[in-house]
């Protein structure tokens, strides 16, 4: 098995080490599109990219405002059942139609997005904290501690994420916290790798040497000098984690292993709509799915722009 980088060279670009059971964090897709292409359509491409960043930013703002404002401003109850108006197709009074017990789907989608975003942000942050601490410790301690930790990361990544998540939730009973925990426990691996690589590359900088000669303790160097250096990368990893976490939560909920079924999570809504879909009513299925896709693309587009700024050499042409 290839030595998973105890060298700083392994830092910026994790080796495509299939032995670790992971696709490299940065697929070749994200690398520079190559000189020739850039010469051909440089300005136009930059324009498209700026437009995409702006669109993503606006979309993210709209999503955040909606999930924050609508529950406060709209006095309607998303759980309110109205059996007289069940499964109405989209219309002016119900733009997304109504579900099998007559609840307004637009309102429910907004509430679902709210819960999914909440789970996504909390789980993404938790995963990032775990990954940053583990990665920073491995990178700063080095030696056998590093090797043990990175081997553990390899082992962890040979269990498919969703399967491990399913297992954890099944053992701890479905609910908000098991879902958050299962997402956090399965998604810290990539952050740990990135942060460790960053720490390794920072460790060889002169100012760290200066701190060591100045007699700073190892802990102090890690906390004062190394951690602040990795924060931007960790922050980026956290944002990139949010769409993953949303996806993961909706999948678990759809399988009946996520949030409680009465909760308007997007995955629960798709699951609940299965019956009406088989009867031919498409709208209760279609809209919650769109509410998963659009924020995912918007967040990924914004994070892509951030990544370009952080790693200008690794010019990303693409999003996700």
């Amino acid at each position: 098995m290839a030595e998973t980088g105890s060298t700083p060279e392994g830092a910026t670009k994790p080796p495509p080490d299939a032995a670790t059971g992971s696709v490299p964090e940065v697929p070749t897709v994200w690398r520079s599109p190559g000189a020739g292409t850039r010469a051909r359509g440089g300005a136009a491409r930059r324009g498209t990219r700026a437009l995409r960043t702006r669109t993503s930013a606006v979309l993210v703002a709209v999503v955040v405002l909606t999930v924050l404002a609508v529950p406060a401003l709209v006095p309607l109850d998303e759980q309110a059942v109205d059996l007289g108006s069940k499964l109405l197709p989209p219309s002016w009074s119900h733009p997304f139609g109504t579900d099998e017990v007559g609840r307004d789907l637009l309102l429910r989608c907004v509430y679902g997005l709210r819960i999914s975003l909440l789970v996504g942000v909390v789980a993404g942050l938790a995963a990032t904290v775990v990954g940053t601490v583990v990665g920073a410790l491995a990178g700063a301690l080095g030696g056998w501690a590093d090797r043990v930790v990175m081997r553990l990361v390899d082992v962890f990544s040979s269990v498919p994420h969703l399967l491990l998540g399913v297992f954890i939730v099944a053992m701890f009973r479905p609910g908000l916290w098991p879902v958050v925990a299962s997402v956090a426990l399965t998604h810290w691996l990539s952050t740990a790798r990135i942060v460790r690589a960053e720490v390794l590359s920072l460790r060889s900088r002169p100012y760290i040497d200066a701190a060591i000669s100045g007699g700073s303790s190892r802990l102090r160097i890690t906390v004062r000098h190394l951690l602040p250096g990795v924060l931007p990368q960790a922050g980026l990893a956290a944002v990139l984690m949010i769409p993953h976490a949303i996806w993961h939560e909706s999948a678990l909920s759809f399988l009946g292993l996520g949030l409680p079924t009465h909760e308007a999570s997007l995955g629960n809504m798709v699951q609940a709509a299965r019956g009406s879909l088989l009867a031919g009513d498409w709208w209760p299925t279609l809209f919650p799915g769109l509410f998963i896709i659009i924020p995912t693309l918007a967040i990924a587009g914004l994070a892509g722009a951030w990544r370009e700024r952080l790693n200008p050499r690794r010019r990303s042409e693409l999003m996700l």
Partner: protein
Amino acid sequence: MARMAGRRLLLAVPVLAVVTFGVFAIAAASPFDPAKAYAGSAGLGAGQDVFDQLRENLGADRPFVARWWDWVTSAVTGDLGDSSTLRQPVADVIGERIGWSVLLCAVAFALAVTVGTALGVLAARRRGGLLDRIVTSLSYTLEAAPPFWLGLLAIWFFALKLGALPAGGLTDTGSDVATAGQVASHVVLPAVVLAVSQLPWFVLYVRQGVGDALEEDPVRGARARGLRERTVLLGHALRSGLLPVLTLVGSRVPELITGALLVETVFSWPGIAAATVQAATSVDFPLLAALTVLATAAVLVGNLLSDLLYGLADPRVGFDG
């Protein structure tokens, strides 16, 4: 090569041991009670002493390390315990279902590789062009779309609206025997959905690989020799651009398993992934533990295959791993 395969198989042993250990540790930390799971609804109203007795009989009162060791030693002999929901040995459950899962995944994977390569080459031919932009945007959207949602929409459209394909299961309702024709018509929809969920990755990788190769010297040389564009694209650019993709194919196993978990559930496909979900919803620990380990083993095999392919496809890479 054989040496490398052997070494990697040896390395898989500790990995699997750690994974099983982790599985038992998680179960021990959780509120899951093997005795209650074993008793099922028959345990309702039973007193504490009954459960204590049951726990002792099942060996569940011992520390989880001891139970883990028991499980490992009997697993080596092929005894994976009994599934508490399906009331049959776990090994039988796996044996009955694994073939269907392999069939589904193989069809889907072959489809994803072929279509993905074709679309990737088309997009790479003129990067930044209209076709490229359509293909890449579509890929991102599909990558963001949950497979279960795609599956349900596919059922709605192809099975309900068009009535062209069956909505799920393995055979038509009423027939018990799985004939080849029935299975073939039932596998189409789930396999296509699973393939579509894996497609974006292939398209984007092939597009990048071929696009980069188109700007390299061999292609420039081939163009200078006046070869036809088609020959240059398929004979030169595709050949070198596909190399990095082929070698990463094996590392797609985790994503394939994730996709299968969702797709098999949506289409009621009688495979092993659907059994995993059933085992999870009914907290069937013996089945769940065995399937988690099986999935991990599949991932390790995929990694090994991908490394072997890497060495075969690119002679510069040695087999010293």
